[in-house]
């Protein structure tokens, strides 16, 4: 865990309000694992006051890491206006990564921007002997990001859109049962509603999965107990007990 100035070396707009940033920060890039995040102070002003968390999208393991983010409010808006060369105040890597399980199939389920931590996970799953299938659900075709990179990396990809503008029409959770199989390892990230439905279906099938959650963070390092979610034996902190949780542990 480091606090440092990461140099923004590349900023790409993937769509209106959606960006990929590449940062130079060896300390973070070397140790980041899929599912972990960085916590960025977008402004030295007191508004917005808190850091903004972003999953590590990928890391070259040596010098650079990337994030994928969507402009939601003031914080991401300020971040999106930064130009290459900017030094960005960054704490990371933070949180518990995905545990790579030796399933016969790696079933990776992404909802919207939830693809970010999973992209990094899939980079690592590539080196494993089992095939990886990504179920990628978005509202509409324009919200599909990084598909070329995903395809190029050899991931098997099934797309779902709410409006049928690409892939299968419908929600990824409507079809997920078709892809589950005994012994598969399931990893998911997306809106809370999706995670809930998904977890229910996964558990009904006698399986379990790892899910990455989001929440409003305070400290980002486990000190404030502000970011908790309900787990069976009380509350767990998203920032350091998560963001990746075993679906078994969570209570919805």
């Amino acid at each position, binding site marked *: 865990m480091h606090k440092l100035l990461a140099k923004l070396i590349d900023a790409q707009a993937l769509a209106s309000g959606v960006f990929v940033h590449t940062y130079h920060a060896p300390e973070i890039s070397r140790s980041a694992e899929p599912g972990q995040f960085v916590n960025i102070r977008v402004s030295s002003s007191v508004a917005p*006051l808190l850091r903004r968390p972003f999953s590590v999208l990928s890391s070259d393991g040596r010098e650079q890491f990337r994030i994928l983010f969507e402009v939601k409010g003031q914080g991401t808006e300020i971040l999106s206006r930064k130009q290459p060369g900017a030094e960005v105040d960054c704490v990371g890597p933070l949180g518990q990564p995905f545990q790579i399980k030796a399933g016969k199939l790696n079933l990776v389920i992404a909802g919207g921007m939830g693809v970010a931590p999973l992209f990094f996970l899939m980079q690592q799953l590539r080196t494993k002997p089992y095939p990886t299938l990504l179920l990628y659900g978005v509202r509409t075709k324009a919200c599909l990001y990084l598909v070329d990179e995903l395809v190029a990396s050899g991931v098997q990809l099934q797309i779902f859109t709410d409006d049928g503008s690409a892939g299968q029409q419908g929600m990824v959770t409507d079809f997920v049962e078709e892809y589950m199989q005994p012994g598969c390892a399931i990893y998911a990230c997306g809106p809370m509603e999706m995670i809930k439905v998904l977890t229910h279906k996964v558990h009904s099938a006698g399986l379990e999965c790892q899910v990455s959650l989001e929440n409003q963070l305070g400290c980002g390092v486990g000190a404030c107990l502000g970011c908790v979610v309900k787990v069976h034996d009380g509350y767990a902190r998203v920032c350091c007990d998560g963001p990746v949780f075993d679906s078994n542990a969570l209570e919805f």
Partner: protein
Amino acid sequence: MPDLEIQIGELTLKNPVTVASGTFGYGQEYEAFYDPSLLGAIFLKSVTLEERPGNPPPRLVETPAGLINSIGLQNVGLDRFLDEVVPLLEGIDTVLIANIAGNTVDEYVQLAEALSDCPGLAALEVNVSCPNVKEGGIAFGTSADMIREVTQEVVAASALPIIVKLTPNVADIVSMAHAAEEAGATAVSLVNTFLALAIDIETRRPILGNATGGLSGPAIKPIALRMVWQVARSTNIPIIGMGGIMTGTDAIEFLMAGATAIAVGTANFVNPLAPVEIVKELEMFLEAHHHTSVREIINVVEG
């Protein structure tokens, strides 16, 4: 190098920069950033007699230059605090101050007794922002009489110096500090958070699971600073000042207003290095102004 040491009653702090209860856990979480022994003191997160699950989430909401929290005193309770937390503190070479919270005077007393002989603890901070269940749930800290009673009992129950942490949700902070002073407190901490609310206009409900929470951060600094100044001018009790301190300048304002030490709270979240940077900025200010000791700038504002 100017002398940063300060004295609060019988407590000696290597410097006046401490961290506020509930914002620094039990000292472990920030070890990745710096050695917590560099701090003047650490105020540990509140402990209660019984384990508390805390409030339902969401527990945090950001506001203009502020943060509302409703953690709800989540903690493992006294027994596990003694068994599990206290051993973790061993390596930290600074003044460690436990913070106790209760819903009855008796709970405070039991906590104070149990923690008195606890190795490593140098003092107790008494969080009086909690509802007094015997008085219909009105916070102890909003009545001088209740503050007097709790303080007296805790002082009697413990050999450790007692620091009373006052709530700012009062009309007259001076009378609250007076009550603590008269009842034998070694110092007062000023201030806890301001009761606050945020609403989600789409769901038409409070954002926090607990509806209201406590506002902290730079937004409250001007009010907290006023309270420190008022108390410093009207009492003789040492003050640990806090509320929105982000920088060395903020810390110096509190010291000049009359605080003998200051605590960094929400700023830890924004800049995990804030406390050590504040120590450095304080040192630089003293040097630039040819002071040999930080004590020369404490309580110098008249106005």
